[in-house]
């Protein structure tokens, strides 16, 4: 994801801002830099959200599992 996306994301639980930790960057085909891996941490409640393969997973923790069942 682009770092600028962080400005419009928030913690799904309490709507506070997220801080990026352990970020790994990659330069895309159009020379723009993207965050490819890392963790988004709520500045208020401390909940941690994974960012993998360039996609932030901001589902609430109880919905985070891969399977729909």
């Amino acid at each position, binding site marked *: *994801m*682009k770092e600028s*996306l962080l*400005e*419009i*994301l*928030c*913690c*799904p639980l309490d*709507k506070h801002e997220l801080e990026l930790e352990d970020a790994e960057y990659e330069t895309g085909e159009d020379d723009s830099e993207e965050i490819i891996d890392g963790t988004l941490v709520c500045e208020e409640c401390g909940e941690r*959200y994974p960012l993998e*393969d*360039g*996609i*932030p*997973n*901001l*589902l*609430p923790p109880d*919905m985070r599992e*891969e399977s*729909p*069942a």
Partner: protein
Amino acid sequence: MGLEDRRDLETDVYQPAEDSHLLASAVLEHLSVDETDLVLEVGTGSGYVAGRIDAETDARVVAADLNPHAVRQARTDGLEAVRADLVSPFADEAFDAVVFNPPYLPTDPDNEWDDWMERALSGGEDGRAVIDPFLEGVGRVLATGGVVYLLVSSLTGVDEVAAQAGEAGFSAVSVADESFPFETLTILALYR
């Protein structure tokens, strides 16, 4: 993307159909945005509608879905993708437009098959199990003067959805509709 992956996507991700085409063309006809504007597609599925808006307007487009297969497809297709439950992880007043083709088919609870395709189609017993919480939440992420484009089927009830939108503080205007053998699809524009 190989054939095998494509086949998996057909079972795991809702692929563009008549409803997707109607929503995309209605949005592109009515939405006026520039390069400073932000558009969110909720439940992007294959990313078809978000992709059209991204390609045919100057706006920055964000594609969100609950389904991990859908967000991966959207990202592969060059869209900014976020795995999200409706609008819950987006900042207040972030978007100038929000677009949603919701799961809307009324479903007997005994008949639900509980996989990603069911999640993409089923709107619960009254067809509004996803639409109602969307309408409650979407106002928070909408900028002043922002608009919501929502696809509604006659199977779900356009009047019922418009009434629910009214309770959430919106006025609803029908901007497009199209009839099919078993349903009429309507695109509602919601304004505050």
